[in-house]
Protein backbone atom coordinates (compact mmCIF):
# COMPACT_ATOMS: atom_id res chain seq x y z
CA UNK A 1 0.00 0.00 0.00
CA UNK A 2 1.28 3.43 -0.83
CA UNK A 3 0.48 6.35 1.38
CA UNK A 4 0.26 10.05 0.73
CA UNK A 5 1.61 10.82 4.21
CA UNK A 6 5.25 11.47 4.98
CA UNK A 7 7.21 9.64 7.66
CA UNK A 8 9.49 11.76 9.80
CA UNK A 9 12.36 10.98 12.11
CA UNK A 10 11.90 13.83 14.53
CA UNK A 11 15.19 15.07 15.86
CA UNK A 12 14.81 17.40 18.84
CA UNK A 13 15.42 20.38 16.56
CA UNK A 14 12.86 19.23 14.00
CA UNK A 15 10.31 18.62 16.75
CA UNK A 16 10.91 22.14 18.07
CA UNK A 17 10.49 23.74 14.65
CA UNK A 18 7.31 21.78 14.01
CA UNK A 19 5.79 22.88 17.32
CA UNK A 20 6.22 26.49 16.35
CA UNK A 21 5.20 25.96 12.73
CA UNK A 22 2.10 23.91 13.54
CA UNK A 23 0.94 26.40 16.18
CA UNK A 24 1.19 29.15 13.58
CA UNK A 25 -0.50 27.22 10.77
CA UNK A 26 -3.43 25.93 12.79
CA UNK A 27 -4.08 29.30 14.44
CA UNK A 28 -3.82 30.99 11.04
CA UNK A 29 -6.25 28.45 9.63
CA UNK A 30 -8.75 29.10 12.39
CA UNK A 31 -8.49 32.88 11.98
CA UNK A 32 -8.92 32.58 8.23
CA UNK A 33 -12.30 30.96 8.84
CA UNK A 34 -13.52 34.39 9.94
CA UNK A 35 -12.93 35.92 6.55
CA UNK A 36 -16.25 37.38 5.39
CA UNK A 37 -18.02 36.78 8.70
CA UNK A 38 -16.50 39.21 11.23
CA UNK A 39 -18.56 41.61 13.39
CA UNK A 40 -17.51 44.60 11.30
CA UNK A 41 -15.62 45.18 8.10
CA UNK A 42 -12.62 46.72 9.81
CA UNK A 43 -12.24 43.65 12.02
CA UNK A 44 -12.59 41.32 9.05
CA UNK A 45 -9.51 42.95 7.62
CA UNK A 46 -7.66 42.91 10.95
CA UNK A 47 -8.28 39.20 11.55
CA UNK A 48 -7.16 38.38 8.02
CA UNK A 49 -3.94 40.30 8.66
CA UNK A 50 -3.23 38.23 11.75
CA UNK A 51 -4.05 35.04 9.86
CA UNK A 52 -1.68 36.03 7.06
CA UNK A 53 1.09 36.71 9.57
CA UNK A 54 0.54 33.25 11.06
CA UNK A 55 0.56 31.48 7.70
CA UNK A 56 3.70 33.39 6.78
CA UNK A 57 5.44 32.31 9.99
CA UNK A 58 4.39 28.72 9.37
CA UNK A 59 5.80 28.78 5.86
CA UNK A 60 9.16 30.14 7.00
CA UNK A 61 9.32 27.51 9.73
CA UNK A 62 8.31 24.60 7.46
CA UNK A 63 10.93 25.69 5.02
CA UNK A 64 13.48 25.47 7.82
CA UNK A 65 12.02 22.13 8.92
CA UNK A 66 12.61 20.82 5.40
CA UNK A 67 16.19 21.97 5.62
CA UNK A 68 16.66 20.30 9.02
CA UNK A 69 15.07 17.11 7.70
CA UNK A 70 17.42 17.20 4.73
CA UNK A 71 15.50 14.94 2.36
CA UNK A 72 14.14 17.55 0.00
CA UNK A 73 10.67 17.91 1.51
CA UNK A 74 8.74 21.13 0.91
CA UNK A 75 6.64 23.38 3.15
CA UNK A 76 3.54 21.80 1.66
CA UNK A 77 4.70 18.27 2.50
CA UNK A 78 4.67 19.25 6.16
CA UNK A 79 1.32 21.01 6.02
CA UNK A 80 -0.57 18.68 3.71
CA UNK A 81 0.94 15.26 4.15
CA UNK A 82 1.01 14.60 7.87
CA UNK A 83 -1.71 12.86 9.86
CA UNK A 84 -3.28 14.56 12.86
CA UNK A 85 -1.09 12.58 15.26
CA UNK A 86 2.01 13.94 13.50
CA UNK A 87 0.95 17.53 14.18
CA UNK A 88 2.76 19.16 17.12
CA UNK A 89 0.60 22.22 17.82
CA UNK A 90 -0.86 22.91 21.22
CA UNK A 91 -4.56 22.20 21.77
CA UNK A 92 -5.39 25.87 22.31
CA UNK A 93 -4.88 26.95 18.70
CA UNK A 94 -7.11 24.23 17.27
CA UNK A 95 -10.10 25.16 19.44
CA UNK A 96 -13.05 26.42 17.36
CA UNK A 97 -13.57 30.12 16.71
CA UNK A 98 -16.80 30.11 18.70
CA UNK A 99 -18.20 33.60 19.02
CA UNK A 100 -15.92 36.61 18.64
CA UNK A 101 -15.21 36.47 22.39
CA UNK A 102 -13.75 32.97 22.14
CA UNK A 103 -11.56 33.98 19.21
CA UNK A 104 -10.24 36.99 21.11
CA UNK A 105 -9.57 35.02 24.30
CA UNK A 106 -7.74 32.30 22.36
CA UNK A 107 -5.68 34.99 20.65
CA UNK A 108 -4.78 36.75 23.90
CA UNK A 109 -3.78 33.50 25.62
CA UNK A 110 -1.63 32.38 22.72
CA UNK A 111 -0.11 35.77 21.95
CA UNK A 112 0.77 36.38 25.61
CA UNK A 113 2.91 33.25 25.37
CA UNK A 114 4.31 33.43 21.85
CA UNK A 115 5.28 37.10 21.85
CA UNK A 116 7.77 36.87 24.73
CA UNK A 117 8.83 33.49 23.30
CA UNK A 118 9.89 34.97 19.97
CA UNK A 119 11.48 37.93 21.67
CA UNK A 120 13.65 35.57 23.69
CA UNK A 121 14.36 33.42 20.64
CA UNK A 122 15.91 36.37 18.84
CA UNK A 123 18.98 35.41 20.85
CA UNK A 124 18.92 31.76 19.73
CA UNK A 125 22.24 30.14 18.84
CA UNK A 126 20.45 28.82 15.77
CA UNK A 127 20.73 31.62 13.23
CA UNK A 128 17.72 30.49 11.19
CA UNK A 129 15.45 30.42 14.22
CA UNK A 130 16.79 33.75 15.43
CA UNK A 131 15.91 35.25 12.05
CA UNK A 132 12.38 33.84 12.11
CA UNK A 133 12.03 35.13 15.68
CA UNK A 134 13.11 38.64 14.76
CA UNK A 135 10.42 38.87 12.09
CA UNK A 136 7.71 37.04 14.03
CA UNK A 137 8.13 39.04 17.21
CA UNK A 138 7.06 42.29 15.56
CA UNK A 139 3.96 40.55 14.25
CA UNK A 140 3.03 38.83 17.51
CA UNK A 141 3.51 42.05 19.48
CA UNK A 142 0.78 43.60 17.33
CA UNK A 143 -1.44 40.52 17.63
CA UNK A 144 -1.18 40.75 21.40
CA UNK A 145 -2.00 44.43 21.45
CA UNK A 146 -4.93 44.06 19.09
CA UNK A 147 -6.45 41.11 20.92
CA UNK A 148 -5.82 42.53 24.40
CA UNK A 149 -7.56 45.78 23.49
CA UNK A 150 -10.56 43.83 22.25
CA UNK A 151 -10.57 41.75 25.43
CA UNK A 152 -10.69 44.95 27.46
CA UNK A 153 -13.45 46.38 25.26
CA UNK A 154 -15.54 43.23 25.58
CA UNK A 155 -14.90 42.75 29.29
CA UNK A 156 -15.60 46.37 30.13
CA UNK A 157 -18.33 46.82 27.52
CA UNK A 158 -21.92 45.66 28.01
CA UNK A 159 -23.30 43.06 30.41
CA UNK A 160 -23.71 40.67 27.51
CA UNK A 161 -20.18 41.11 26.18
CA UNK A 162 -18.76 40.71 29.67
CA UNK A 163 -20.68 37.46 30.22
CA UNK A 164 -19.63 36.10 26.84
CA UNK A 165 -15.96 36.89 27.23
CA UNK A 166 -15.82 35.56 30.80
CA UNK A 167 -17.44 32.32 29.60
CA UNK A 168 -14.91 32.05 26.79
CA UNK A 169 -12.08 32.64 29.23
CA UNK A 170 -13.41 29.90 31.53
CA UNK A 171 -13.73 27.51 28.59
CA UNK A 172 -10.27 28.13 27.16
CA UNK A 173 -8.28 28.55 30.35
CA UNK A 174 -7.64 24.78 30.69
CA UNK A 175 -5.67 24.99 27.42
CA UNK A 176 -3.50 27.92 28.47
CA UNK A 177 -0.86 25.93 30.33
CA UNK A 178 0.26 23.54 27.60
CA UNK A 179 2.39 26.14 25.85
CA UNK A 180 4.76 26.21 28.85
CA UNK A 181 5.44 22.48 28.90
CA UNK A 182 8.61 20.98 27.49
CA UNK A 183 10.20 17.53 27.29
CA UNK A 184 13.72 16.16 27.84
CA UNK A 185 14.60 16.51 24.15
CA UNK A 186 13.78 20.19 24.25
CA UNK A 187 15.86 20.57 27.43
CA UNK A 188 18.95 19.61 25.42
CA UNK A 189 18.25 22.42 22.96
CA UNK A 190 17.73 24.84 25.82
CA UNK A 191 21.10 23.84 27.28
CA UNK A 192 22.71 24.46 23.88
CA UNK A 193 21.22 27.96 23.67
CA UNK A 194 19.12 27.01 20.64
CA UNK A 195 15.75 27.02 22.36
CA UNK A 196 14.18 28.95 25.19
CA UNK A 197 12.63 27.03 28.06
CA UNK A 198 8.92 27.81 27.67
CA UNK A 199 8.46 27.54 31.43
CA UNK A 200 10.73 30.55 31.88
CA UNK A 201 8.14 32.67 30.05
CA UNK A 202 5.32 31.90 32.44
CA UNK A 203 5.92 34.93 34.69
CA UNK A 204 5.79 37.30 31.70
CA UNK A 205 2.58 35.59 30.55
CA UNK A 206 1.04 35.86 34.01
CA UNK A 207 1.87 39.55 34.23
CA UNK A 208 0.31 40.26 30.84
CA UNK A 209 -2.81 38.29 31.63
CA UNK A 210 -3.18 39.91 35.05
CA UNK A 211 -2.88 43.40 33.59
CA UNK A 212 -5.34 42.78 30.78
CA UNK A 213 -7.90 40.95 32.90
CA UNK A 214 -7.83 43.69 35.48
CA UNK A 215 -8.50 46.35 32.91
CA UNK A 216 -11.16 44.15 31.33
CA UNK A 217 -12.77 43.65 34.78
CA UNK A 218 -12.65 39.89 34.22
CA UNK A 219 -11.91 37.14 36.71
CA UNK A 220 -8.92 34.90 36.20
CA UNK A 221 -10.20 31.32 36.25
CA UNK A 222 -8.85 29.11 38.96
CA UNK A 223 -7.35 25.76 38.03
CA UNK A 224 -4.02 25.03 36.50
CA UNK A 225 -4.92 24.63 32.87
CA UNK A 226 -4.44 20.91 32.65
CA UNK A 227 -5.37 20.02 29.07
CA UNK A 228 -2.37 18.98 27.03
CA UNK A 229 -1.13 16.36 24.61
CA UNK A 230 -0.83 18.29 21.35
CA UNK A 231 2.96 18.30 21.40
CA UNK A 232 2.86 14.49 21.44
CA UNK A 233 0.20 14.28 18.75
CA UNK A 234 -2.70 13.66 21.13
CA UNK A 235 -5.12 16.25 19.87
CA UNK A 236 -8.69 17.30 20.50
CA UNK A 237 -11.36 16.11 18.08
CA UNK A 238 -11.17 19.41 16.25
CA UNK A 239 -7.82 18.92 14.51
CA UNK A 240 -9.08 16.05 12.38
CA UNK A 241 -11.78 18.27 10.91
CA UNK A 242 -9.29 21.07 10.30
CA UNK A 243 -6.99 18.73 8.41
CA UNK A 244 -9.89 17.23 6.46
CA UNK A 245 -10.49 20.69 5.00
CA UNK A 246 -6.86 21.73 4.78
CA UNK A 247 -5.54 18.58 3.15
CA UNK A 248 -8.48 17.45 1.05
CA UNK A 249 -7.17 18.43 -2.37
CA UNK A 250 -3.64 17.21 -1.79
CA UNK A 251 -4.94 13.91 -0.44
CA UNK A 252 -7.46 13.45 -3.26
CA UNK A 253 -4.89 14.13 -5.99
CA UNK A 254 -1.59 12.67 -4.79
CA UNK A 255 1.39 14.17 -6.55
CA UNK A 256 -0.55 16.90 -8.35
CA UNK A 257 0.92 20.39 -8.61
CA UNK A 258 -1.32 23.32 -7.63
Amino acid at each position, binding site marked *: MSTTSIALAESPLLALVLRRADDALILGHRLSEWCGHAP*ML*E*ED*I*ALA*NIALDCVGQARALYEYAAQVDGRGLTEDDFAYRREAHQYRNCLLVEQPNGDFAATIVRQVLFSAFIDPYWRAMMGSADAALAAVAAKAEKETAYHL*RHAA*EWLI*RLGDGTAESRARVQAALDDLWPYAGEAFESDPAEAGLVAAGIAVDPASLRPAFDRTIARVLEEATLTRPTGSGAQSGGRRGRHSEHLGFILADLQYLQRAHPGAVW
Partner: protein
Amino acid sequence: MAEAKIPLWEVFIRSRNGLAHKHVGSLHAADAGMALQAARDVYTRRGEGLSLWVVPSAAIVASDPADKEMLFEPTASKIYRHPTFYEVPDDVGHM
Protein backbone atom coordinates in the same frame (compact mmCIF):
# COMPACT_ATOMS: atom_id res chain seq x y z
CA MET B 1 -34.14 48.74 16.89
CA ALA B 2 -31.70 50.86 14.89
CA GLU B 3 -28.14 50.18 15.96
CA ALA B 4 -26.02 53.05 17.30
CA LYS B 5 -23.80 54.46 14.57
CA ILE B 6 -20.13 53.73 14.94
CA PRO B 7 -18.24 57.00 14.36
CA LEU B 8 -16.43 57.77 11.12
CA TRP B 9 -12.72 58.66 11.15
CA GLU B 10 -10.43 60.16 8.52
CA VAL B 11 -7.05 58.51 8.02
CA PHE B 12 -3.81 60.30 7.14
CA ILE B 13 -0.54 58.53 6.32
CA ARG B 14 3.05 59.72 6.17
CA SER B 15 4.45 57.50 3.46
CA ARG B 16 8.06 58.30 4.22
CA ASN B 17 9.98 60.56 6.52
CA GLY B 18 10.23 64.05 5.17
CA LEU B 19 6.74 63.98 3.65
CA ALA B 20 3.60 65.39 5.19
CA HIS B 21 0.71 63.16 6.26
CA LYS B 22 -1.74 62.77 3.41
CA HIS B 23 -5.42 61.90 3.52
CA VAL B 24 -5.97 58.33 2.29
CA GLY B 25 -9.52 57.44 3.28
CA SER B 26 -11.97 56.78 6.08
CA LEU B 27 -13.10 54.02 8.41
CA HIS B 28 -15.43 53.32 11.30
CA ALA B 29 -14.28 52.77 14.88
CA ALA B 30 -15.77 53.15 18.33
CA ASP B 31 -12.74 54.90 19.83
CA ALA B 32 -9.37 56.38 18.95
CA GLY B 33 -7.37 53.25 19.78
CA MET B 34 -9.59 51.13 17.61
CA ALA B 35 -9.42 53.70 14.82
CA LEU B 36 -5.63 53.72 14.86
CA GLN B 37 -5.42 49.93 14.68
CA ALA B 38 -8.05 49.75 11.96
CA ALA B 39 -6.14 52.41 10.00
CA ARG B 40 -3.03 50.27 10.25
CA ASP B 41 -4.89 47.14 9.16
CA VAL B 42 -6.94 48.72 6.39
CA TYR B 43 -4.62 51.30 4.87
CA THR B 44 -1.07 50.00 5.32
CA ARG B 45 -1.31 46.45 3.97
CA ARG B 46 1.20 47.14 1.24
CA GLY B 47 3.86 49.07 3.09
CA GLU B 48 2.20 52.41 2.45
CA GLY B 49 3.25 54.21 5.58
CA LEU B 50 5.50 55.03 8.51
CA SER B 51 3.15 57.13 10.56
CA LEU B 52 -0.62 57.39 10.96
CA TRP B 53 -3.07 60.04 12.05
CA VAL B 54 -6.74 59.38 12.66
CA VAL B 55 -9.17 62.25 13.15
CA PRO B 56 -12.87 62.02 13.94
CA SER B 57 -14.60 63.09 10.72
CA ALA B 58 -16.94 65.22 12.79
CA ALA B 59 -13.95 67.27 13.99
CA ILE B 60 -13.09 68.49 10.50
CA VAL B 61 -14.31 71.96 9.67
CA ALA B 62 -14.56 72.48 5.93
CA SER B 63 -14.89 75.63 3.89
CA ASP B 64 -18.14 76.04 1.99
CA PRO B 65 -17.77 75.50 -1.77
CA ALA B 66 -20.20 78.39 -2.20
CA ASP B 67 -17.55 80.68 -0.70
CA LYS B 68 -14.94 79.53 -3.17
CA GLU B 69 -14.85 82.76 -5.15
CA MET B 70 -14.74 85.00 -2.08
CA LEU B 71 -12.07 82.90 -0.41
CA PHE B 72 -9.76 81.97 -3.22
CA GLU B 73 -10.11 84.35 -6.13
CA PRO B 74 -8.75 87.55 -4.58
CA THR B 75 -5.34 85.94 -4.42
CA ALA B 76 -5.13 85.64 -8.19
CA SER B 77 -4.35 89.34 -8.62
CA LYS B 78 -1.43 89.35 -6.15
CA ILE B 79 1.08 88.44 -8.78
CA TYR B 80 3.82 90.36 -6.93
CA ARG B 81 3.97 87.44 -4.48
CA HIS B 82 5.59 85.27 -7.12
CA PRO B 83 9.31 85.43 -7.93
CA THR B 84 8.71 85.62 -11.68
CA PHE B 85 7.07 89.02 -11.17
CA TYR B 86 10.49 90.60 -10.67
CA GLU B 87 13.08 91.16 -13.30
CA VAL B 88 16.70 90.31 -12.65
CA PRO B 89 19.20 90.58 -15.55
CA ASP B 90 20.56 87.23 -16.73
CA ASP B 91 24.17 88.20 -16.03
CA VAL B 92 23.38 88.65 -12.33
CA GLY B 93 23.02 84.89 -12.19
CA HIS B 94 20.66 82.70 -10.22
CA MET B 95 18.81 84.36 -7.39
